[in-house]
């Protein structure tokens, strides 16, 4: 059986995936169903390589990071137990890769925004490639929660509607309190008005 190799190129990134069709699932000879290895070349950084689990970890960190960044939220993805994590820094983005081999120090790659978008496009191309029939365990893109973007939205914009509502209610209540109740009457103001004699013109 021939080993298949697919390549995804961008200006500063090249992702190459090697694998085989999963015959048990009835894949054709031109389909990758089992990923055996992959390599990622980022301009100005050492070549990265690994197994499927590492690639999946990279996708699980980088793609949600890009999704959050699109909403203006800068937060890290991937913790110290994951092979790959990404976080924002002063110059752009810091990609941290931890080797599963003992004694190998984590590798840090600094990316600017253009390099990040190149990497995201490579991962997107792999994810959407119909020739690669792999079920990626990546969280789906969803709208963010209020708490995620609360810091990004100005205080005034967050509470404008509530403030207008409360102030309108208070104003109406204050005006209502200013209307005097007719003296010497047991009737409520509304009843008193209803019983007032009408003047004919």
């Amino acid at each position, binding site marked *: 059986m021939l080993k298949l190799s697919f390549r995804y190129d961008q200006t500063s990134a090249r992702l190459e995936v090697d694998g085989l069709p999963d015959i048990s699932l009835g894949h054709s000879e031109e389909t990758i169903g089992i990923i055996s290895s992959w390599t990622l070349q980022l301009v100005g950084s050492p070549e990265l390589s690994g197994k499927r689990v590492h690639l999946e970890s990279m996708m699980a960190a980088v793609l949600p990071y890009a999704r959050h960044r699109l909403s203006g939220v800068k937060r890290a993805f991937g913790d110290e137990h994951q092979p790959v994590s990404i976080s924002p820094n002063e110059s752009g983005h810091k990609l941290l890769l931890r080797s599963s081999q003992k004694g190998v120090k984590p590798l840090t790659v600094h990316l600017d925004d253009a390099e990040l978008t190149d990497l995201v496009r490579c991962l997107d191309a792999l994810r959407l490639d119909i020739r690669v029939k792999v079920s990626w365990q*990546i969280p789906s893109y969803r709208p963010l929660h209020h708490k995620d973007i609360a810091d990004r939205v100005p205080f005034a914009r967050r509470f404008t509607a509530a403030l207008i509502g409360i102030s309108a209610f208070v104003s109406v209540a204050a005006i209502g309190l200013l209307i005097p109740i007719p003296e010497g009457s047991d009737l409520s103001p509304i009843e008193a008005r209803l019983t007032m004699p009408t003047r004919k013109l």
Partner: protein
Amino acid sequence: MDMTQASKTKRAILGRRACERLDLLLLVIEALDLNSSEAMLFTSHKLGFQALFPNRVELWKRRCYNPLRKTTRRGNLSEVDAEALIKLLCSMADRLYPVLRQLLSKKEPKALNDERWNLFGTRLNELIQERMNLRRGAVQRLLSKEDMNSFHYELIFTLALAAGPGGVDRLRASLLDPFS
């Protein structure tokens, strides 16, 4: 549920701010590509939206759901129209990706890139003045932002992350954020 499945099931009506943002991003495309009005129509036909946008007027009418425009339409952009506009935007961003990348790259010569940013900023402001209702406070804020450069940078970065078929789901999810 993986991302591909999610894209097929998720569709929703965009809020007012999301319509504003979508139209503003299309305006950014116009600022980057002088021939974009023709290119948008051509791309929409290529994407199979000929029935939705048979001509430029129909495309313009959908964009008029942006309440900041001089000529606006009441109501909400329908789900089908919103999805078509998102896909059109991502496709146009994909087409212009080399330009977006050039603007974002820190490895480009700084003086040259500064000129590119200036040119882009001028064109975008001119388009905003031409198309938007200048009496609206939100439009005035768009034109008088103190941190105009970072605002323009965010718009270009947004387009770069939304470029291509992979960007459609990301952009849609982002437009459906609360406060959008």
